């Protein structure tokens, strides 16, 4: 059936995706059957389906034929708060497993208005280029003059060059040089984890520019407007106060107090200088503004200036703060802010950058890496290391491939404390003190991940003893993973999750209003499990084995420093992982 006929029967979708070959400029507009959309929704779910259709699991992540998909969702463009989001899905050059990163804002809306539910790119342009998609018409434009430009500079230059209405997603120097945790940036936000920026760079694409005029119809527009208004009102309530008033960075002091703030490459769960770099402190020494994504009523972004003449500022999140602060032993707020901005400019994932540099610092401390300048606590060293990584110069070339790869090169058994799962560096939740999260990290399909598993929520509750996981952890880990899969496919921001009493029922409501489907909450539970299963299928085809679902030896052989109760044995974790596989039916 022609794509135009498919879309005519759908609400909330176009019923088609653009498949673009950057090698020869060929563009196909391919239909997506409604049954597929119902099964995988959009975002990470539809992205996983597209990658499986392409046979991407067997392809090297940075090979020209490897696909990368920018995937929208039925909610994009609707008046629902926080719905202007898109997923970037590809095989990860960092993990060689499936990778799905999310970013927000106008790119999602403009991309969907190009008349498609996803943009899938294969091939490699002959020279560094910008892929321009103007209402579905595609062309490559030379971008050699932008080589080496920061993400923000490239975006600004292209906005000026292309004119009004375009939204730009770009890579920085790190993506051009295939840093395996390079990001794709849009409007100051990043599809951050797993190296999607390196995949785009491997296609010789500096940026993608989209604009369009093709809107989707909604199944029940009046009801949708009413529901959206009510949801926006709820989003101003106490469930989002933390994000609005302090930002995610407020986790820092809480985690430090609970002894689960990863410090000095996970050698400790507390950091003496935590207060000095906390948002509660730095707001007194650095001016701050707030911002939000397009179509968001929460406004979680807290942007701090660096110095009096700084009119640009840096958006500071907990994960960047932890990774470039305590994890590297850095207690200098200026250094953390500068490092965070440098990562943003270069297009580097802050978590993997901090994790890999902290690992290197420990190797230096042990005498296994001859880079004496690279020491815990030195903000200057951390910033220098980021610069070297972005340019792949000196030790930066080693660190640009991530901590797992660096450990394999350094030897001495250093893999035992490379802070990664499946090659992806661990976010800022100490696994020994948060053991439901430890399971979530171990089984994560894209590696250690706090966005695809929200198991930490359970650890911060009465439901479990966070330092003594029982088999109940398995059920909770599955529940949070399934919920994340649904949120990331709809796509809607996870910072809204506290607003919903029964997320699955409300998700069914949203789909009814937008797409006109009468899906039940139970059906959406099945959908969530199907999406997790699709990602798992990709990984199986890519070579996954059960042995990958684990944590580094450090977490399984040593109690957390200063907290003898925070101990997780290999036998415990193996039993949890085994039970997880059993309950998943794997």
């Amino acid at each position: 059936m022609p794509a135009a006929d498919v879309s005519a029967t759908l609400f909330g979708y176009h019923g088609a995706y653009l498949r673009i070959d950057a090698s020869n400029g060929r563009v196909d507009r391919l239909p997506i059957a409604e049954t597929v959309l119902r099964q995988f929704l959009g975002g990470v779910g539809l992205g996983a389906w597209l990658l499986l259709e392409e046979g991407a699991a067997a392809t090297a992540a940075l090979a020209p034929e490897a696909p990368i998909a920018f995937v929208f969702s039925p909610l994009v463009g609707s008046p629902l708060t926080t719905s202007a989001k898109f997923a970037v899905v590809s095989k990860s050059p960092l993990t060689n497993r499936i990778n799905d990163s999310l970013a927000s804002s106008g790119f999602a809306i403009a991309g969907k208005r190009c008349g498609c539910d996803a943009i899938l790119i294969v091939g490699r342009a002959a020279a560094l280029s910008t892929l321009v998609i103007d209402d579905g018409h595609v062309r490559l434009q030379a971008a050699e003059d932008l080589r080496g430009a920061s993400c923000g500079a490239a975006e600004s230059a292209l906005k000026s060059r292309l004119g009004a209405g375009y939204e730009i997603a770009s890579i920085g120097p790190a993506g051009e040089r295939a840093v395996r945790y390079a990001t794709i940036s849009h409007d100051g936000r990043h599809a951050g984890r797993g190296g999607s920026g390196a995949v785009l760079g491997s296609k010789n694409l500096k940026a993608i520019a989209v604009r369009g005029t093709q809107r989707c119809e909604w199944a029940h527009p009046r009801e949708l407007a009413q529901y959206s208004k009510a949801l926006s009102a709820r989003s101003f309530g106490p469930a989002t106060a933390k994000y609005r008033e302090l930002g995610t960075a407020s986790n820092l002091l809480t985690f430090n107090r609970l002894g689960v703030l990863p410090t000095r490459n996970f050698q400790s769960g507390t950091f003496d200088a935590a207060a000095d770099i906390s948002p509660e402190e730095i707001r007194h020494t650095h001016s701050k503004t707030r911002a939000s994504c397009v179509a968001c009523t929460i406004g979680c972004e807290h942007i701090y200036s660096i110095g009096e003449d700084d009119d640009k500022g840096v958006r500071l999140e907990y994960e960047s703060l932890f990774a470039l602060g305590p994890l590297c032993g850095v207690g200098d707020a200026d250094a953390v802010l500068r490092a965070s901005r440098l990562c943003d400019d270069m297009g580097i994932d802050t978590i993997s950058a901090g994790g890999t540099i902290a690992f290197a610092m420990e190797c230096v401390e042990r005498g296994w890496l001859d880079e004496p300048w690279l020491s815990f606590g030195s903000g200057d060293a951390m910033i220098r290391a980021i610069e070297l990584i972005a340019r792949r110069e000196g030790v930066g070339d080693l660190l640009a491939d991530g901590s797992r790869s660096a450990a394999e090169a350094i030897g001495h058994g250093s893999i035992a404390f490379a802070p990664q799962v499946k090659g992806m560096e661990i976010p800022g939740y100490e696994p020994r003190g948060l053991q439901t999260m430890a399971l979530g990290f171990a089984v994560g399909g894209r590696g250690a991940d706090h966005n695809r598993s929200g198991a930490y929520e359970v650890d911060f509750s009465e439901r479990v003893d966070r330092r003594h996981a029982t088999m109940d952890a398995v059920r909770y880990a599955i529940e949070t993973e399934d919920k994340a899969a649904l949120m990331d496919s709809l796509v809607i921001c996870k910072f809204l999750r506290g607003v919903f009493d029964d997320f699955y029922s409300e998700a069914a409501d949203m789909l009814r209003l937008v797409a006109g489907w009468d899906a039940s909450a139970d059906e959406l539970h099945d959908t969530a499990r199907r999406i997790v299963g699709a990602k798992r299928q990709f990984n199986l085809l890519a070579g996954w084995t059960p042995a990958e679902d684990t944590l580094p030896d450090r977490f399984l052989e040593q109690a957390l420093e200063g907290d003898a109760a925070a101990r997780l044995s290999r036998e415990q974790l193996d039993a949890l992982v085994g039970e997880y596989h059993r309950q998943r039916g794997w």
Partner: protein
Amino acid sequence: MRVEFLGIPRERAGVSELELDADTLGQLLTSLEQKLPSLGALVDSGRLKPSFLASLNGDTFVSDPRTRLSKSDCVLILSADAGG
């Protein structure tokens, strides 16, 4: 006993910690509401509101107002959402 505030509760309370006497969590929360009205309501339908968490000594999380407290306990009051 010592009560410590973190996150939004610290913002609301305007202090990072204080000393209080209470035998149960319910008594402590009621005292806090009276002593620090800027905190707003901490209790809803007899339990700690879902946007807050209380932790005993950083070890366990509690919300039942009947939870017994001892003088040596430190009660942490923090934001419920740990998402980053």
